[in-house]
Every structure is written in structure tokens, then in C-alpha cells.
């Protein structure tokens, strides 16, 4: 214990170091390292097949990694899991599943009820409140399959809110979503950031990055650039990630 005191760093919500993931013997994420400071909102960007979703899933231990280490809030990610919410791509679940909107949001309360626990009236009204925060209270008893894509995404986000997580990881939250929903989701996410929570989202729309996110991680199998949006989201780095396409809208 008798070493020099380390230089204080802004606290890190999620730290990925040297993560490699392979499907069969083909690496889809190659030794990626990235750091997501507490209270930041980061866009993970890159072309299709760049390994963005894979990186996040492997970071959470949902798929096995070949090598690498992931820590959340200073602890191994498995131990910090209660503080993390994960919102998968909408296409990842079966929307014909026999469940109502409120049932899905109540799934977010699972940690507080446990394996055999039951929902108390207090917990039920809490789930309802989160649904209301996303303007979806009127839909509580709807069959989930009867919702539009944007409404489904809001339900997913309400479920994440019900968890009360400090780190929210979203996989393409704006894919196939209408403008009103996009605005509602962003306002909720900005609200979470204002509370000191950390947001990480896979994002595709190059034109909204600067407005929505304060940090960017550009990747294409490997990490290409990482840092504050203003200094990182630059033509050279984006071109390197996406290959050479027309990128005139992006500052040089």
C-alpha cells in the first residue's frame, strides 16, 4: 500500500480495456479499449458490422469475449450489474409475446422483488410513474405488439428507468422511431445525465451526434477515436471509421 498516491481521475462509469470478441475464428471486435466518464453521454458510432452492439454486449458479459477486461464503477462489471440498465435493439425481442405494456415495465423492478418475490402496490405505482414519464401511461394495459415502433422503444426506456440504474446502455434507441419519440427519449436521457447518470448509446445518425451527445466513440472493429464530441467527431476520424464517403457536413 506504500506507493505514490495515483493522480485523481474523473470517476469512470465504464472502462473497457483490450476487449476482443470473435464469432468462430473471425474477430468482430479487436482489442478495443474505451473509457466512459461518470455523468457523460456517449455515442458509439461506426458503420454496419463495425461491432458496436457486440462491443456493448460483450462488455456486459452477455456474450463471451476472447480476452479483455471490463470494469464498471471501479468493480468488475458482473459485480456492478445492479447499477446498469441495458436496452436491447427493438428487434431483439418477440413483440407477439403475451404481455402488456405495464408487465414489461415491471420487469425493471425485478432486482427489488428477487427470485420468488411478488410486486407490492408501491412497486406497481412506481412502474406506472416511469411509464407516465415517457408519456405512455394511457397504454399501460395494451398488448405490447399493438404498439408502434416508437412506443415500443419508450416502453423499453421506461423499463430501464424503473431499474433506477446509474449507467444506461442503449442499442440503437432511435432506429425506426418517429421524431416525437426521438425527442421524448432524448429529453429523458438528458434528464438522466443532469442527475449525474451515465448514458452510452449505439447511434447511427451523423447529423444529430453533436446536438445529442457530449462524447463519441468511433470504431470499426477496433477503436478509432474517443473523446468529447467537439474534438473527436472530426472528418478525418469519421472517414477512417466509415471508409471514404462524402463527409462534407462534418467539421474538418
Amino acid at each position, binding site marked *: 500500500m506504500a506507493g505514490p498516491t495515483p493522480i485523481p481521475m474523473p470517476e469512470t462509469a465504464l472502462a473497457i480495456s483490450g476487449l476482443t470478441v470473435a464469432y468462430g475464428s473471425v474477430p468482430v471486435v479487436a482489442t478495443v479499449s474505451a473509457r466512459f466518464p461518470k455523468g457523460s453521454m456517449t455515442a458509439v458510432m461506426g458503420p454496419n458490422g463495425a461491432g458496436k452492439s457486440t462491443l456493448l454486449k460483450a462488455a456486459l458479459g452477455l456474450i463471451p469475449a476472447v480476452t479483455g477486461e471490463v470494469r464498471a464503477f471501479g468493480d468488475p462489471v458482473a459485480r456492478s450489474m445492479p447499477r446498469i440498465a441495458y436496452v*436491447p435493439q427493438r428487434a431483439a425481442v418477440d413483440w407477439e409475446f403475451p404481455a402488456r405494456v405495464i408487465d414489461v415495465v415491471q*420487469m425493471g423492478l425485478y432486482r427489488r422483488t428477487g427470485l420468488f418475490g411478488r410486486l407490492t402496490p408501491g412497486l406497481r405505482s412506481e412502474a406506472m410513474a416511469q411509464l407516465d414519464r415517457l408519456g405512455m401511461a394511457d397504454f399501460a394495459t395494451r398488448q405490447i405488439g399493438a404498439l408502434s415502433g416508437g412506443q415500443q422503444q419508450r416502453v423499453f426506456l421506461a423499463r430501464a428507468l424503473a431499474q433506477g440504474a446509474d449507467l444506461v446502455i442503449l442499442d440503437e434507441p432511435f432506429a425506426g422511431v418517429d421524431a416525437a419519440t426521438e425527442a421524448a427519449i432524448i429529453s429523458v436521457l438528458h434528464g438522466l445525465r443532469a442527475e449525474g447518470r451515465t448514458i452510452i448509446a449505439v447511434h447511427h445518425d451523423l447529423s444529430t451526434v453533436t446536438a445529442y451527445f457530449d462524447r463519441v466513440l468511433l470504431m470499426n472493429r477496433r477503436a478509432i477515436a474517443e473523446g468529447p464530441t467537439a474534438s473527436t467527431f472530426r472528418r478525418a476520424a469519421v472517414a477512417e471509421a466509415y471508409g471514404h464517403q462524402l463527409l462534407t457536413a462534418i467539421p474538418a
Partner: protein
Amino acid sequence: MGSEFVPLTLPPLVIATLAALACAAPGNFLLLRRQALLGDAISHVVLPGLVAAFLLTGSAAPPVMLAGALAAAALSALMIEAIRRTTSADPGAAMGATFTTMFAAGVLLLELSGASATHLDVEHALYGSLEALIWIDATDWSSLLDPAALAGLPPELPQLALICAAVLGLIAALWRPLVIATFDEGFAATQGIPVRLLSAALTGLTALAAVAAFSAVGSILTIAMLVCPPATARLMTDSLPRQMGLSLLIAATAAVLGTLAAGYLPLLMGLPFAVSAAGSIAALSGLFLALAAAFGPRRLPLSRAA
């Protein structure tokens, strides 16, 4: 009435109903997990497990049979996974390759070892022998209150009652995590739900139900009860608890009516014999499904319902 019904018809009836309930309950989750054919696979692979356990121990006691069957089911799960990984084949092909191979191995073991002459035989495995499970000590309805007569019940009955209670009880206890993990496995994992363990538990429960049912009623009834009643209920309602309840009701109805039809319908038609009760229950459950597919209020996929 009763003097023939109680010893000859009542035990198969109750056994078929218990087997149907034990299979239909996990079937609801298998259906939603796109694993409806797991029961098909398990009921095929159970055969080599039973034969191997019998050959190794020389005993056909229920715990030995159960252990052999579960070991075979576990081995098959590994085989399916290994085949999927090496060939990147679709799950259906990996499953088909595994269960046919295991079943072939079972038949071969059975025929070559001579075990078929003693205790097990292929026909029994395929058809079941529900009709043979009679209660000789019973005279009429009053035997249900007679401890001496009750002691002579076919041992399959209390065994299945126990397993049926265990399967239903565990599903009720694990209801919430099972639902969450079935709906969204990735999310469930981030909630600290042991998804792999839960998935293994569901497979184990299915195997337990299938094995218990298999030795009493044969593979066909097992497959039918795992798939048809939950599928029928799925076309009737959008609520999972209601789907579960309905599927149990349908399974029990098919079991009771199917057993009675197999026993009495041929007689009514003037034929001097009964037909396979297991087959008739399976066919009846298919008929229920056909009705639901034609008239069920929730039969259409959402994309076409609107």
C-alpha cells in the same frame, strides 16, 4: 357402473391426465422460446438413456431410469450445441441429427443386448402402454377409500402425481424470472437472473416431465402434450397467465376424453377391442388445435390481425 371402470379405466385416465398436465405446463414456455420441439427431441433421446441405465445397473427401478434418461437428455443438449457450433447449421437440423442418432443408438442397444426381451421394447417406447396400467385390487368406487386396495395402485400413478406436482410447483415459484428471461434474455441477464441456469432448469423440468410421462404413456403422448395444448391456448388469449391455465384445462380434457374414446368408441362401433389411448389423446389434442386455428380469437399474427 364402477366395477369395471374403477380398476380398468380410472387408473389410465388419471395417469394420462397427470402426464398431460406435467407436459403442458413447461410446454407454454418452450412455445414462447421457440423450443417447442425440445420435447420431441427429449422423448427420442430418452430411449438410449433408459436402455443404458438398465444394462449398466440391471435394474429398472424408477430412480435408475430417471437418472439414465436425464443423463441422455443432457448428453443430447451438449451434442446439439456442439453440432451447431461446428457446422453453423440451423438449430432444427442440429436437433434432428441429434435425436435421430440417439434414438437409433437406443434401438440398437435394445435389440443387440437382448434387453428387449426382458423389460423394455421399442413398441412400448413408441406407443406407450397406458392400457396396461390397471388397478387389479379395485372392486368399485369404494376402493378409493380402502387403504389395502390403494396400496395396489400401479406405481406409475403416485410417481406421476409427485412429478406433476413438482413441475407445476416449480413453474409457479419461478414464474416471474421465467417470464422475464423468456421475453428478453439479455435484459434478464443484466437483472442478475441466472438465465443459463433457468434455461437449464426449464430443460430439466421438461426432461423430468417427458421421462415420467414417457415410461407411462410413450413418446407420442409426451410430444403432443408438450406442444398442442399450449399452442391451442396461445391462439385463444394474449395473457400469459390465462394461456397457462387454459393449456392445462385443454390438456386434461384431451387426456380424459381421449382415454374414454379409445376405450369405448370402438365398442360403440361394434368392434370388440380398444385402440391406443396415447394415440387417441394425441390426435384429439391435434383436433383441438385445429379448432383453435380456425376459430381462435387470437389466431392471427399481429401483422395480419389489424
